[in-house]
């Protein structure tokens, strides 16, 4: 029972989205920088090196709305006398702008809302920092900003979309790994790209978040990956938590009724 299923409001037509084709990513992090610049996202103050390949951003968060993951995957050599090879996997992660968005469903203030482009955005003048969305997001995207108290995440550059511009990350991406457009068209483009990669022998190519029948009703920002989602730090099969909410409310109603009956019972026939 998500807000979207209840039809409040219906998703904007045509719905806008991101298709991030990781097979084209060169790990330049231009998207991370462009996002910070355009949206005035504060610096993450720690200047530590993680030692995790070239990734020192580590995860999405209140101050990182794009995050480029770097994976150095060992490829065992066919010839035992040769050295093993390394395969580079790079992927720019972002808020998925879910169809059934748990963050939006659970937000008690209405700060999170569905825009006319079908994206999910926080209204910063309303959020009271209750943190419910943080625990609800199955992808671990949205988070509370330290020292501010409110939550922040990718807005798909709401201000730019309104002016007919593409989001800053897509604009800055030099390889068109990040593609912005109408979701239906992006899905077609992605299908064609997977077929092409399979023909070229890239067996591991697969789409992630493109299927409207998955646990979150499909993502407004979906991906072409070259390995299992968990390799990139993505959940393999996320389900929106509110799918089970009708069951939960029923159980709570049963428990409440039981409590009331129990309360009557403890007074029944009690002598002192």
């Amino acid at each position: 029972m998500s807000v979207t299923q209840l039809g409040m409001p219906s998703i904007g037509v045509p719905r806008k989205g991101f298709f991030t084709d990781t097979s084209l990513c060169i790990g330049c992090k231009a998207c991370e920088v462009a996002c910070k610049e355009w949206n005035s996202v504060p610096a993450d103050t720690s200047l530590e090196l993680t030692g995790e390949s070239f990734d020192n951003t580590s995860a999405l968060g209140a101050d990182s709305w794009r995050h480029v993951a770097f994976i150095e995957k060992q490829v065992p050599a066919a010839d035992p006398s040769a050295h093993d090879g390394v395969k580079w996997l790079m992927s720019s992660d972002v808020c998925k702008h879910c169809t059934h968005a748990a963050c939006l469903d659970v937000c008690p203030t209405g700060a999170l809302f569905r825009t006319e482009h079908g994206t999910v955005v926080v209204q910063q003048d309303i959020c009271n920092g209750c943190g419910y969305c943080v625990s609800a997001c199955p992808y671990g995207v949205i988070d509370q900003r330290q020292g501010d108290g409110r939550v922040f995440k990718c807005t798909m550059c709401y201000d730019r979309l309104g002016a007919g511009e593409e989001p800053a990350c897509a604009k800055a991406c030099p390889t068109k790994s990040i593609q912005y457009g109408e979701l239906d068209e992006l899905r077609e483009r992605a299908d064609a790209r997977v077929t092409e990669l399979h023909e070229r022998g890239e067996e591991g190519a697969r789409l992630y978040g493109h299927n409207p029948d998955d646990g979150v009703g499909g993502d407004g920002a979906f991906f072409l990956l070259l390995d299992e989602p968990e390799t990139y730090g993505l959940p393999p099969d996320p389900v929106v938590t509110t799918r089970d909410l009708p069951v939960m409310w029923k159980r709570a109603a049963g428990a409440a009724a039981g409590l009331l009956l129990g309360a009557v019972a403890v007074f029944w026939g009690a002598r002192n």
Partner: protein
Amino acid sequence: MSPRRGATEEFTSYYGRPILKKPTWSAVDIAGYIFAGGLAGATSMLAAGAQYSARPSLERRSKLMALTAISASAVALVHDLGRPERFLNMLRVAKPTSPMSMGSWILSLYGPLAGASAASNVLGILPRAGRACGVGAAVAGAAVATYTGVLLADTAVPTWHDAHEALPFVFAGSAAASAGGVAAALAPVAEAAPARRMAVGGAVLETVMSLKMERSGKLSAETLHQGRAGTLLRLSKAFTVGGAVGLALGGRHSRLVSTMCGLAVAAGSALLRFGVFEAGVASTLDPKYVVVPQRERADEAARQREAAGA
């Protein structure tokens, strides 16, 4: 950013980093809020029963206790917000998909009812209206004591969500146990029989349902046995069971036994909420609780698709 865990061999992750975000909630505020809310809600039921069964002392003390507990819980809730001054934004909308929104409305209904019935009782004004408010508070109190199970379960936190069928009952039992225990400690023995019964009945429900939750067989349930959460939950059972047995055997005869055992049951209830809270937090820090079950589900779906296609 949460610290990374050591990468393990049994499943794939991104440098062992968590997939989910750690809850922003503080244990004292939110586990404390759930405990105090449950205590208040169930205490209002005792108060309503007492007002119709000529137990004036139990009635007065329960009404004051319920008001105190709900005030403390409201303070904890507001204190936990990143922007406490915007608390009233909670009442901008009413959203059935948001247990926190529903909870805010339930609290705004319950709080004034509990307050009015306590005020009427203490000041001796409008006794009829006061009693009507007392009944209203008992009914709303049942919602206050149980919706918190949905509040935790309606998240991506593996331990909490996996327990979504059990949690409202665990919390209902725990609320009754704490209310009965505290009232048995506060009220004179001669009036406290219903309180003792509620404490014992609540303790039984709490213990049975939490054992069920801990043995669900879901991977995330192991967080209920390990580390700090495991310690808290084991302590909780010791207090709850010990206190309930003591109350059942000796609560009738001695005010001292009634007080000590009643408070023990209430302490067990509080420890339970902290244990469940900590277990949930632990399940967000290790990506295993996200990856392993979801990978199994995805593989199973793929097998079925293949079988259907072949």
